């Protein structure tokens, strides 16, 4: 009997201590935000969304290679001799047209591994988190600023140049091969002549 009373007393006591805590919290300051009206300020350096400053990109592909999930898709075309793409703001010369620079933010896991190897610091995270989409394909961000016609043009030019170079190289190779063949032929002739001469001399003795 005594034990039962004691137990009930302990129960009541513990419940009311708990209630006290709850009441203190009830009158305490609010800890939540009413989201769409109030927004949390993300700290500097928060990793929420990737951004590429395409003007500074030199197309070195280091970021794409560092990504564990392969969500960066870069296609570069070598610039032809007649154009100068200029330099980045960090002073690195640009040698490639960036015909494609796509990042699939739906695949990205915000690991920050692509940010560190970039030589010009042009790929980085920005603290922006409201970018939901109804269609997942809208989450593939296209950072390349070249128009499709431009892309076709530079590709054609680059191809032409490559073709030209290839032809030149082939020409050179052919010339070389011809010269080599000529030389060999001459050498053979000489050797033959010498051989016959030797034979004659040997035979004469």
């Amino acid at each position: 009997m005594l034990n039962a009373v004691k137990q009930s007393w302990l129960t009541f006591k513990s419940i009311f201590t708990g209630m006290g805590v709850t009441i203190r919290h009830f009158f305490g300051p609010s800890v939540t935000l009413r989201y769409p009206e109030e927004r949390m300020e993300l700290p500097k350096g928060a990793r929420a969304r990737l951004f590429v400053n395409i003007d500074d990109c030199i197309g070195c592909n280091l970021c794409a290679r560092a990504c564990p999930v392969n969500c960066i898709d870069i296609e570069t075309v070598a610039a032809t001799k007649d154009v100068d793409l200029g330099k980045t703001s960090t002073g690195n010369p640009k040698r490639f047209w960036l015909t494609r620079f796509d990042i699939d933010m739906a695949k990205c896991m915000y690991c920050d591994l692509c940010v560190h190897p970039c030589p010009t610091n042009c790929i980085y995270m920005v603290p922006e988190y409201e970018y939901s989409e109804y269609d997942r394909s809208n989450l593939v961000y296209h950072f390349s600023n070249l128009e499709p016609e431009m892309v076709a043009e530079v590709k054609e030019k680059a191809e032409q140049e490559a073709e030209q170079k290839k032809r030149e190289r082939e020409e050179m190779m052919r010339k070389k091969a011809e010269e080599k063949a000529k030389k060999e032929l001459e050498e053979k002739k000489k050797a033959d002549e010498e051989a016959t001469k030797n034979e004659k001399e040997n035979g004469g003795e």
Partner: protein
Amino acid sequence: MIEVISKETGNKEMVINMGPQHPSTHGVLRLELVLDGEIITKVRPHIGYLHRCFEKYAEQMDDYAKVIPYTDRMDYVSAINQEHGYVIALERMLELEVPERVEYIRVIMAELQRIASHLLGIGAFGLDLGAFSPFLYLFTEREKILDIFEKVTGARLLYNYFAVAGLMRDVHPEFKTDTAEFVKTFRPKIKELNDLLSYNKIFIQRTANIGVLPEKVAFNYAASGPVLRGSGVKWDLRKNDPYSIYDRFEFDIPVGTGEVGTLGDCWDRYMVRVKEMEQSLRIIEQALDGMPDEGDVMAAIPKRIRAKEGEIYVRTESPRGELGYYIVSDKSASPFRVKARAPSFVHLSLLPAISRGSLIADMVAIVGSIDIVLGEVDR
């Protein structure tokens, strides 16, 4: 629902599924329960719903460092501790020296993460047993820790912050004051938690003498962490096999005492976690004092990781227990094999042993008290 006749007792038994979509299985765990009335006669955990091939992925990567973000995703509640184990394993493999400042920052982060993880574990445990308010109050505190993390690493949950022999970025100048401020405000909250939940009679009634795990069974099942300490065994890898710089700090290892029930019951396991948070605060305070102000945290990170042929096993104390990484290298750029010894997986295998004979309502308490994270079980 299937009904079977028990061979032993001749009673009609019922087989039901708990989960995989059940609010108190902490993820996607399916428990196949065989019930005799309300008494559980058999439990069979079914896992694999969250399997993401972590170990196979690690072999696929062309760089050791690319595996670190994947370790985060194993136990997403204590991501920092998962990274810690992995980078320590690599550092020992490569015989790298870790700068002093890096070690201190790592310990502070790891202990903060331990508190955050225990807050979630305790809060969800209370929530499962019907205590809603503590969950909210604890989450308020957890948010503060996540804020600190976000300011330092840029992410709130999956940090990818530790690098081999370094950190991905330096801490901001206010890091010390922020953390010290948190430590100061958090201490009274532990007392509040004890008032609100730990010594609440209803809570005690639901957890004391439930799911008793005797010391011997704990050893046989290779339990570790708070589950093992709840059974009264003083075993903590931070003390017994010190890694990083844990041997420099003074802290106690709280163990279960059977204060309100039997030694090794759900309440003991719960209380060990509460007391551990206090110890973590002590470690953080000491580490904040000892942390050097100067030093480049990124200087020692190797550009390319080329390990010698060999293998290594490193175990660390994660909030859930002994987290081990077994890494085999074949001299190439990617690991030949990475095996993670996940404490949650080991503890899940304890379930059948400690829940036989208890009521179905207590199953929730038992699952909550071993504090598993399914991401780590399935990997």
